[in-house]
């Protein structure tokens, strides 16, 4: 599994990527196709585009933090 860092990628490119994956953004938060905010399923917080990670497992978008990533790896041990 290759890991691609979004750290230094422009906001415009990230929005294009999100759209390609069936999501969107208002420039600050990641949005679902119906324009509702994508919620980090483990921490239950809205995901900011500047801090998002996009992980395999039916496309899981999370906030980049150790709690969410630990929980993700517990659920998907071979995810990344």
């Amino acid at each position, binding site marked *: 599994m290759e890991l691609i860092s979004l750290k230094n990628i422009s906001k415009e490119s990230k929005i294009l990527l999100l759209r390609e994956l069936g999501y969107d953004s208002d420039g600050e938060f990641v949005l679902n196709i119906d324009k509702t905010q994508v919620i980090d399923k483990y921490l239950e917080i809205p995901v900011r585009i500047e801090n998002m*990670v996009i992980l395999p497992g039916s496309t899981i978008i999370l906030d980049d933090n150790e709690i969410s990533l630990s929980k993700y790896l517990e659920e998907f041990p071979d995810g990344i």
Partner: protein
Amino acid sequence: MEYDDIVEKTATGVTKGLLDWSLSSIKALAQKFRDKELAFIQDEETIKVVKEQLNSGELNFYKIYIPDEKILFLAKIGLTLRRLENNSERRKNLRDKVHQKYEVRGLHISQFVENGLLNRYIGILIENLISIQDLKDKIMKLLNEIEKYVLFVKAQDVERSVIDQVRIKVFANSPSIFVVSGISAGAEIVKKCESKITLLLTNYELEKISSERKENLFYKRVFRD
């Protein structure tokens, strides 16, 4: 550019850290993602730190004695906090998130592990081991009711309130082990209070675990004839 060329260029870009983020490349990356060949992250170091804790020896040890999944997870996060000791921004961010999701008690459980207090606490329990089940019960009682057994001294605490809190907690609960713990400015306050606490807890003997930034006092109850 053909699709295969784009994918190949993309893969090469990944290894070199120089990705082309044109629309065609983004489409190729999205396809690779859908094919489960790549993931988009922020910082590889974060993934590395999280993965390290998943299989750490210390966590595997705790798995034997902590059957509660939520508490075990907080222990894991405690190990992660310890690993982030030299990354104050990341550590603060994680502490804030633990506090937000698991409240003060959850943060204190993680902090107890972070500061190496749980492993020493277990060490003291083992010195008087009755049975494995008894050890498990005592560890779970400690973690479930951590505020009864540990005083976490904060930077804004004053000497008087620390001593009052020790008195209240110890006299109300008569714990066999009571811990006073402080980090950075909290550690300085613990140092100032040590002699007064030791005078107060006449039925306890003191074991100290100190380092540059941490001051931890373990008071162990002694049984006199």
